[in-house]
């Protein structure tokens, strides 16, 4: 590219919020309720704090090396062989995650809307949509995400406000009867959702940095936290903790409860499409990261040629990744360390090494 890509702070925030909230708002209320019943808000709070920590690690890493993405940092710190291997692992992670989200996306629409439409259709539609955006580059993705951000946040708030007279705040009582430790069983999962913001390690070097960049990024996590908290709270207050755990997508049931003028209801079909937008942003963010990482690592001459094969690979991978929803959710339940490993642990390790290296340089 001849022109340097830049994205604004607001676009960074929008990307963080949308890609974190996109799928988590669907699965989180049910999964958290499964672990902590009526105290699921507690998991969100703790997860939010961990998410902030995660963000700080990534930001700090970026402060050490302002114009390197995480792959470049890997090779810089650990040498071309070991670091290169780790960078490849990261690329693999991005690729893998993109196909996971694509699968989530199609699974969600099959369940929430129409089980008759074949899954392949949704997968293809999603892949085309995202490949198209990746083709146009990061700036375009960022600009679209701004609009998506506004639409999504407004819709979410509207959903929660429209249900306000159906809430039973007493469903939250008693608070933390099991103590502070027991509900933390689901913490890994909560962390992995907030950790979805790790793709910013690929894009943060393009952000036009000002004093408030950190503030915007934090605000992104803050908004995510609030939205997720609201979705969890309203599910608990509406259905009760135990019932929430039995729904596949409690947020959709929430929408089904909205009723206007006595007989206009079932808005779920219409509002569900908001999740098309947010999934789109999320898949595209990871797709782009994978694409960028791949073209950097392999030093591709015409990277754009690789978009269509990549998209096709995503479709096939997602199709045969898992058999169905049960396997999908159980993977998230038991294997969430896999996500957290790449989101938090490896970056922390890199940060650790980086700080030692910088200190040594200084002392010399």
């Amino acid at each position, binding site marked *: 590219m001849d022109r340097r890509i830049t994205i*604004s702070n*607001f*676009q960074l925030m929008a990307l963080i919020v949308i890609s974190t909230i996109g799928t988590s708002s669907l699965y989180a209320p049910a999964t958290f309720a499964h672990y902590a019943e009526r105290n699921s808000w507690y998991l969100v709070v703790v997860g939010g704090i961990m998410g902030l920590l995660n963000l700080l690690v990534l930001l700090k890493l970026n402060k050490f090396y302002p114009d390197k993405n995480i792959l470049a940092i890997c090779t810089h710190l650990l040498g071309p062989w070991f670091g290169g291997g780790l960078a490849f692992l990261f690329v693999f992670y991005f690729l893998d995650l993109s196909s996971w989200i694509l699968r989530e996306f199609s699974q969600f*629409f099959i369940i929430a*809307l*129409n089980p008759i*439409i074949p899954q392949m*259709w*949704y997968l293809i*539609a*999603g892949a*085309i*949509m995202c490949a*198209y*955006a990746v083709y*146009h*580059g990061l700036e*375009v*993705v960022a*600009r*679209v995400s*701004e*609009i*998506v951000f*506004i639409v999504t946040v407004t819709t979410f708030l509207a959903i929660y406000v429209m249900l306000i007279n159906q809430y039973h705040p007493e469903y939250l009582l008693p608070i933390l009867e099991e103590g502070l430790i027991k509900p933390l069983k689901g913490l890994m999962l909560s962390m992995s959702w907030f950790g979805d913001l790790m793709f910013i390690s690929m894009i943060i070097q393009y952000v036009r940095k000002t004093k408030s960049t950190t503030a915007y990024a934090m605000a992104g996590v803050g908004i995510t936290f609030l939205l997720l908290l609201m979705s969890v709270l309203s599910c608990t207050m509406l259905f009760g903790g135990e019932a929430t755990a039995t729904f596949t997508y409690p947020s959709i049931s929430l929408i089904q409860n909205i009723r206007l003028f006595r*007989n*206009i209801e*079932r*808005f*779920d*079909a*219409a509002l*569900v*499409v908001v999740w*098309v*937008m947010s999934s*789109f942003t999320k898949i595209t963010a990871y797709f782009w990261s994978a694409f960028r990482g791949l073209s950097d690592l392999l030093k591709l001459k015409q990277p754009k040629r690789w978009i269509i094969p990549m998209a096709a690979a995503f479709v096939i991978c997602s199709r045969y990744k898992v058999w169905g929803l049960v396997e999908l959710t159980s993977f998230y339940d038991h294997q969430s360390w896999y996500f957290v490993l790449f989101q938090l642990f490896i970056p922390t390790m890199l940060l650790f090494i980086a700080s030692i290296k910088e200190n040594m340089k200084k002392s010399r």
Partner: protein
Amino acid sequence: MDNNKAMLTCDEDENKRILREWMQNTDDLVMVSSAIDLGQSVTVCYLAGLIDGRQLDQMLLLYKEDKDRLPAFQVDAKVHTFEEVANGLASGMSVLLFDSDGYGITIDTLGVQLRSVDEPTSEATVKGARSGFTESLQNNIALVRYQFASPSLKVEYRIAGQLSKTKMAILSVGGITNPDILQEVHQRIDEIPADAILGSNYIEEWITDNRGTLFPLLESTERPDRVIGALLDGRIGIIVQGTPFVLLLPFVFLQAFQVSEDYAWSYYIGSLMRLIRLFSGMVGLLLPAFYVATVTFHHELVPTTLLQSIASAKEPVPFPAVVESFMMMIAFEIMREAGIRMPKQVGQAVSIVGALILGQAAVEAGIVSPIMVIVAALTGICTFTLPPTAINYVIRILQFVMTLLASLLGYVGIMVGIIMLLTYLASLRSFGVPYLGPAAPFNLSELTDVIVRRPHTKNNKRPSLFRVIHNTRFRSKS
């Protein structure tokens, strides 16, 4: 031509002969010799019909009285080559050829009957100025100057088209317009290789950023006030000779929903009208798709009573909803096209046939359902609220695409369409300005003058979107 640089000679007959050759021996070339002074005779050449004869006479008399008094003559237009003479003649000049000297003088005597200043037909208003541009370049510039009497208004002439030699004027405001964008415009216009420019759209297609796009990346308008408003926002106007449509650039998508009348009403009314236009733009784009998706995929959303009505109305119709909607939409497009092309005298017949056959008989015959008629009619009317020069043709095309997507994947299909559309729009640029601005990149304070209308008293900043040099309109005292 081998003798491109052929100079005028001092021989009268020779001049006449060569000139006639240059002009393809055309019959309307008039060459009259007359003696102005003692011993000096002059040949007056012009194309008959293209010049104002009385003006020419006056000029000649003036010239006879005082050879140095040449304000009305294009003094600097002393021509020396046959090519210059021929080009001058073709663009409506009269040329005086002196047999003693090797040069000629061109006199601007263009006299063509043109339309007078009229109400702009494509952008009619209830309140606000009623004069629109005409086909005359000079007159159009005068119309702008008349309302914008400031020395900072800059007009630059350019000529494009190898054969048509179309004159155009680039309007900008010194101290506001970004010189980089202006430079870019000059460069792009200078690079136009076309042989003829027969309207502003020719220019538009040559200088636009993305030639394959469906969306207009330049705005065209018939209204002087709109041009002035755009100039004050730091945009650039291009007036092309021979067309009443003036090009404005850069152009961003959301401006397609603005009309100059918004500023003629109180800002509440102006804002409301603008919101209605935005809304109906969306309805025009999505309503048929939404209807098709709802009745084929998402039956739950419709209230039970309404669904019952729709179902019983749809009962005799054998076609799927998507076919039905395509039929109605195409029928509507045909009627609209017919409405524009048909002579006024048969208008009544066409409208009766259209309304009766498509509105009633088709329903009774069980070809379409009445709900579909409502949907098609509403969609059609919604697109009429938008200014006709910009987006509404695009919306009409895209509504077909959206309907197709809706019939495949329901609401998800519509959403996929919208997202791809947004991605596409976000990737467009008009002279370096992001097409979706100021919505993306997001700028709240500028959105307040795009989606709604800001009061004039609060409108103290020019949009930074067009990278203006000086972005304060005025300093408010309070």
